[in-house]
C-alpha cells in the first residue's frame, strides 16, 4: 500500500516541482471552464450577461485563495516557505552583524571543541583495530593478586606462555610478542647508524592478527627457531624512510646489532601494534625463538612478553581468562619462586591499547560538552535579548495573521543559521585542533587512527540541530506568548515583559555559572596535580644535564675488555670537552624508566623463607656517575677504578633501601646476594634516593659497577656549566669516532626527559584549563549582557529614581547585587556538583585530593571576582546616569 501510494504520488509531486507553471495553467483552465459553463447556465436561466458573470464568479468563491489552497496540496509549499524563512533569517542576521558574529564565534568554539574531541574519542576508543575480526582478539596478562606490584597487569614469562598455548588450543590461538626490543641498525650504503625500536614475535603472530605483508612473506616455523637463518620484517614506514621504498627490498640484507638479517617482508602501512606496554613505534619485527636467549625462552621468572590470543568461535574472553588463570595457579604450585605470578587476567586488544586514555579522554569530552552547553545557553540568552527588542515586530506579524508556528519556525531557522555557521567555523577549528593533537601527542596509542569520518560528520550535524533547537526553542517560547495586543502596547515604560525575559536569561546564566564552576574545579585540580608532578623532586638537579643512550652490539663487542675500553674512551673524551664539568655512565638515568629489578637477601641477616627476597631496583654505574648526576653519597664511598670485571662485586644502595632493609644498623660492610644465583656483593656506600618515574615514589635501589655485571648498554650523563643542549653534537661526534656504526638515541636534557613523562598530565590540565577559561569568559559575557540589558530596560525608571533623589551608591549596590544573584546561585549549584563530578577524575590526579579545599575556594573566589567585574560596568553606568537624559530617551 505504501509503495502503491508512492507510485501515484511521486510523479505528481515531481510534476508539481518541475512543471509548476503547467499545473497552474491547467488549474486556471479548469476554473475558466467551470465559470464559463456556469455563465452559460445562468444566461440560460435568464440573467443579463453581467449578472451571469458575477453570479458565476460568486458561486466559485475566492479564486486566488482556492488557487493557493490547491498549490498547498502540491506539497513543496513547505520547502518554499522554508526557503523564504531562510532568506528572511539571513537578512535579519546580516542586519545585526555584531550579534551574529558573537553568536557564531561562541557556537564555533563550542561545536569545534566537541567535534574534535568526539573524533578523537571515536577514533581512539571506539574504532575497531585494523586487524581482521578484531573483536575476537584479546591480550592475556599475568596477575599478582598479592599486590606486590602497583599494576595488576603484568607482562608474561615465556615458560608459562608455552604451557598456556599447549593447553588452550581448543579455546584460542595464542601468539607471544615482546614489543620492547631494539636494534642498532647500521652498515649498509654509508647510511647513519640508528637505534630502532623493535619487537619479537612468534611466527603465528601476523596470521593470528590477520595481517598480510605488503611485500614478501610472513615468518614461518623455519624462521622461528634457534639456529635458523636470521630474518626480519620491517614496517612500511621504515621501508620508505631507510630504504627509500626500494621495490626489490625483499631478500636483501640489513645489519642489526652488527649481524646480517634477511628482510623477508614489508608490513602494510595500515599495520600498527599498540598495546598498553607500547609498541606503536616498533619498526622491525623478528622471530622470538631465533632472537631471545634460550634461558629467557624457558624461564618462569622473567616477564619480557605479552600474550595475544584470537578466541575460537563461541569462546568468550572470560572463559579463556579463567582457563589460563587456573593453569597459572598450577604453574605457581610447580614453581613457587617469588618471581612466578599466581594468576592471569585478560582484556580485549582494543581495551589494552586505549585503557590508559579512557578516563582522560572522557573527562575532556565531558569538559567540551559543558563548553558546548554553555555556548548554547549564551546564544539562547542572546536570542532571548534579541527577541525582547523585536517583540513589537513579532506582535505586528502576529496581528497581520502570521501563524504562531510560522513565527516560531522563523526563530528556529535563525538559530539554525547561527549554529550551522558556527559549525562551519567550528569544523575548521576542530581540524586544526586534530592536526595539532596528532603532532603534539605522537606518543599516544592509536593516534594514527584519528580521522574525521562519516560518524563524526553525523555527530556534527546532530550537534548543529540540537544546538539550534535548544537555543531557538528557549528564545522562541520566551516571547509573544499569546497576547498580541500586549506586545503592541508594550513600551519601555512598561517593562514587566522585559523582566520576565530577564528571568529566563538569569536561569540560563545560573546553569551556565554552575557548569563553569565544575569546569574550573576540574581544571584547578588537574593543574594542581600537574604542578605537584612538575615540582616533585626527582632526587637530582635537573638543569644543565644532557643524556644520550647507546647499546654496544654483542656481535662486535664480545669481550668485556672491548666494552670497558669503549666506556673508558668515551668517558675520557667527553670529560675533556670544553664546557663539560663532569660525565658519568649509568644503565638508566633518573626518570628513564623501570629498567630491571631483582630479589636479594642480606647475608648477615637471618635467612628469609624460601622464595622470598628484598626487591631492589638495579642500576649499573661508573665511579664518576654519582658526582656527575648530582646524587649525594651519604655514607661510605663510590667505586674504585679497579672495581670492574671480576672485582665488580661492590654495591652502593639508596637511602630508602638502607632505611627499609637496615633499620637501626650500618649497612656498610654488609653483603647482599641474589636469591637464585648466589653471587655476593659488598655494600660500600649509601646514596640519595632518585625516582625512576616522576610520578612514582623512589624504590629501594642498588648500584653496582657498569664495568661488569653484564652491561653492554648505557646512558651517558653529561653535566655542563650551562646550556646542556649544545653538548649533544660534540658528544655524538665522539661516539661516531669511536664506532662509526654505533647509533645514539634518546638525546635530550634531563629536564626534557622528565617533561616527557609529565606530558599526559600537562596535556590534560592545559586543555581542561583552556575550556574552563572559555566557559568563564562566556559566563562573564552573559552576566554583563543580562545586567546591561536590564539597565537599558529600566533606564527611565532609574532616571526617575535619581530625579527623586535616590542615592547613587545605593543604586550601584542594588544593581550589582541584582547582577550577581545568578552568579551566586550558580556557585551554590556548581560547588556540590563539582564535588560529585571530580571523583570521576580521581585516577588522573597525582598527590591531589579530589575535594581539595584550596582549589574549591580559589574557584569560588575567582568566579565571584569575575562576576563582580562583569557586573560593575553596567551598574556603574546606571548609577552615573544623568536623570534628564535618561528621562528623554523615550
Amino acid at each position, binding site marked *: 500500500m505504501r509503495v502503491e501510494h508512492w507510485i501515484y*504520488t511521486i510523479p505528481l509531486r515531481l510534476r508539481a516541482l518541475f512543471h509548476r507553471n503547467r499545473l497552474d495553467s491547467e488549474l486556471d483552465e*479548469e*476554473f475558466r*471552464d467551470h465559470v464559463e459553463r456556469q455563465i452559460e447556465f445562468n444566461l440560460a436561466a435568464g440573467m443579463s450577461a453581467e449578472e451571469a458573470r458575477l453570479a458565476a464568479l460568486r458561486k*466559485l*468563491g475566492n479564486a486566488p485563495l482556492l488557487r493557493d*489552497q*490547491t498549490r498547498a*496540496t502540491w*506539497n513543496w509549499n513547505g520547502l518554499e516557505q522554508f526557503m523564504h524563512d531562510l532568506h528572511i533569517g539571513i537578512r535579519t542576521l546580516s542586519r545585526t552583524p555584531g550579534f551574529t558574529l558573537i553568536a557564531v564565534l561562541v557556537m564555533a568554539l563550542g561545536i569545534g571543541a566537541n567535534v574534535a574531541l568526539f573524533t578523537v574519542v571515536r577514533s581512539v576508543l571506539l574504532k575497531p583495530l585494523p586487524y581482521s575480526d578484531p573483536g575476537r582478539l584479546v591480550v592475556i596478562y599475568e596477575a599478582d593478586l598479592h599486590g606486590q606490584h602497583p599494576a595488576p597487569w603484568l607482562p608474561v614469562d615465556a615458560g608459562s606462555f608455552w604451557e598456556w598455548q599447549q593447553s588452550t588450543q581448543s579455546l584460542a590461538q595464542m601468539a607471544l610478542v615482546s614489543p620492547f626490543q631494539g636494534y642498532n641498525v647500521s652498515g649498509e650504503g654509508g647510511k647513519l647508524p640508528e637505534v630502532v625500536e623493535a619487537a619479537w614475535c612468534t611466527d603465528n603472530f601476523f596470521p593470528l592478527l590477520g595481517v598480510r605483508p605488503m611485500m614478501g612473506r610472513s615468518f614461518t616455523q623455519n624462521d622461528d627457531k634457534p639456529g635458523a637463518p636470521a630474518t626480519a620484517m620491517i614496517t612500511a614506514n621504515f621501508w620508505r624512510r631507510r630504504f627509500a621504498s626500494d621495490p626489490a627490498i625483499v631478500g636483501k640484507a640489513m645489519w642489526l646489532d652488527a649481524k646480517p638479517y634477511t628482510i623477508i617482508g614489508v608490513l602494510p602501512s595500515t599495520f600498527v601494534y599498540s598495546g598498553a606496554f607500547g609498541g606503536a613505534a616498533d619498526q622491525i619485527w623478528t622471530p622470538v625463538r631465533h632472537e631471545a636467549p634460550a634461558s629467557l625462552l624457558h624461564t618462569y621468572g622473567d616477564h619480557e612478553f605479552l600474550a595475544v590470543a584470537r578466541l575460537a568461535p563461541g569462546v568468550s574472553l572470560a572463559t579463556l581468562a579463567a582457563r589460563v588463570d587456573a593453569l597459572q595457579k598450577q604453574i605457581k604450585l610447580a614453581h613457587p619462586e617469588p618471581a612466578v605470578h599466581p594468576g592471569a587476567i585478560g582484556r580485549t586488544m582494543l581495551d589494552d591499547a586505549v585503557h590508559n586514555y579512557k578516563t582522560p579522554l572522557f573527562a575532556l569530552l565531558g569538559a567540551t560538552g559543558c563548553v558546548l552547553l554553555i555556548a548554547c545557553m549564551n546564544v539562547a540568552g542572546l536570542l532571548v535579548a534579541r527577541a525582547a527588542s523585536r517583540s513589537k515586530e513579532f506582535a505586528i506579524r502576529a496581528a497581520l495573521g502570521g501563524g504562531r508556528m510560522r513565527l516560531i519556525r522563523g526563530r528556529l531557522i535563525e538559530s539554525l543559521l547561527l549554529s550551522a555557521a558556527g559549525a562551519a567555523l567550528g569544523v575548521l577549528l576542530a581540524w586544526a585542533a586534530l592536526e595539532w593533537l596528532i603532532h603534539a601527542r605522537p606518543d599516544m596509542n592509536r593516534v594514527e587512527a584519528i580521522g574525521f569520518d562519516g560518524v563524526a560528520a553525523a555527530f556534527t550535524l546532530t550537534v548543529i540541530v540540537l544546538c539550534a533547537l535548544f537555543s531557538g526553542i528557549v528564545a522562541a517560547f520566551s516571547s509573544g506568548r499569546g497576547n498580541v495586543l500586549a506586545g503592541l502596547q508594550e513600551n519601555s515604560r512598561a517593562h514587566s515583559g522585559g523582566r520576565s525575559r530577564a528571568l529566563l536569561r538569569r536561569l540560563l546564566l545560573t546553569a551556565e555559572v554552575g557548569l563553569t564552576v565544575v569546569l574550573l574545579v576540574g581544571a584547578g585540580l588537574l593543574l594542581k596535580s600537574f604542578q605537584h608532578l612538575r615540582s616533585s623532586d626527582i632526587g637530582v638537579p635537573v638543569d644543565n644535564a644532557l643524556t644520550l643512550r647507546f647499546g654496544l652490539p654483542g656481535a662486535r663487542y664480545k669481550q668485556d675488555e672491548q666494552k670497558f675500553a669503549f666506556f673508558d674512551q668515551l668517558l675520557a673524551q667527553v670529560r675533556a670537552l670544553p664546557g663539560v664539568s663532569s660525565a658519568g655512565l649509568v644503565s638508566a638515568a633518573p626518570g628513564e624508566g623501570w629498567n630491571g629489578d631483582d630479589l636479594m637477601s642480606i647475608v648477615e641477616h637471618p635467612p628469609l623463607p624460601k622464595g622470598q627476597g628484598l626487591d631492589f631496583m638495579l642500576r649499573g654505574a661508573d665511579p664518576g656517575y654519582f658526582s656527575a648526576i648530582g646524587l649525594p653519597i651519604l655514607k661510605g664511598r663510590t667505586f674504585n677504578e679497579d672495581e670492574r670485571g671480576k672485582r665488580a662485586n661492590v654495591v652502593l644502595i639508596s637511602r630508602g633501601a638502607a632505611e627499609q632493609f637496615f633499620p637501626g644498623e650500618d649497612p656498610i660492610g654488609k653483603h647482599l646476594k641474589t636469591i637464585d644465583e648466589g653471587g655476593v656483593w659488598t655494600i660500600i656506600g649509601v646514596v640519595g634516593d632518585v625516582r625512576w618515574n616522576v610520578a612514582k615514589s623512589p624504590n629501594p635501589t642498588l648500584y653496582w659497577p657498569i664495568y661488569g655485571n653484564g652491561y653492554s648498554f648505557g646512558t651517558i650523563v653529561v653535566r655542563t656549566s650551562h646550556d646542556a643542549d649544545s653538548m649533544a653534537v660534540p658528544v655524538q661526534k665522539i661516539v661516531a669516532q669511536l664506532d662509526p656504526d654505533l647509533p645514539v638515541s634518546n638525546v635530550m636534557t634531563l629536564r626534557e626527559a622528565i617533561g616527557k613523562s609529565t606530558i599526559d598530565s600537562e596535556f590534560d590540565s592545559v586543555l581542561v584549563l583552556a575550556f574552563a577559561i572559555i566557559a568563564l569568559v562566556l559566563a562573564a559575557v552573559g552576566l554583563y549582557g543580562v545586567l546591561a540589558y536590564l539597565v537599558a530596560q529600566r533606564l527611565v525608571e532609574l532616571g526617575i529614581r535619581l530625579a527623586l533623589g535616590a542615592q547613587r551608591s545605593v543604586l550601584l549596590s542594588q544593581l550589582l547585587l541584582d547582577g550577581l544573584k545568578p552568579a551566586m546561585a550558580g556557585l551554590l549549584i556548581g560547588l556540590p556538583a563539582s564535588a560529585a563530578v571530580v571523583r570521576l577524575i580521581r585516577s588522573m590526579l597525582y598527590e591531589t585530593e579530589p575535594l581539595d579545599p584550596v582549589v574549591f575556594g580559589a574557584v569560588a573566589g575567582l568566579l565571584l571576582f569575575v562576576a563582580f567585574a562583569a557586573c560593575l560596568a553596567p551598574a556603574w553606568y546606571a548609577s552615573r546616569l544623568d536623570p534628564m537624559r535618561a528621562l528623554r530617551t523615550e
Partner: protein
Amino acid sequence: MPMGDMPNSLSPAGALPLLILRVLHSEPLHGYAIAQRIHVLSSDVLAVEEGLLYPTLQKMLLKGWVEAKWGISETNRKVRFYRLTPKGKVQLEQELASYGRITHAIQEVLRTA
C-alpha cells in the same frame, strides 16, 4: 482510513471528498459536472462553495483515489475528466460504511435520548 487533513466529514464541506467519490462511482466526470451532480442529487441542500472542489480533487489525486485525464467534453471543449481508481473505490466503501454507522448512531441518540 481517516480523512487526514480534510475537514470533519459530518459538515457539508467535510463530506465533499465522500460526495465526490460517490458521484464519480458511476462514471468519470469533469469538475463542473461533479459540482452540478452534487447540487442536483442533494436538491441544493449541500450547496458547497463550488471552487473548493478543485483543491479537494488535487488532494484526492495525490492520495491516489482518483486519476485525471484530459479529454474532449460533450460540448467539444478540452476538459479534465476525473475517474475513480480501484483504491478510490475501496475508500468509498469504507467511508460509506463508517458514515452509515455514525449517522445511524447519531439518529439513535437523537431519537431515544
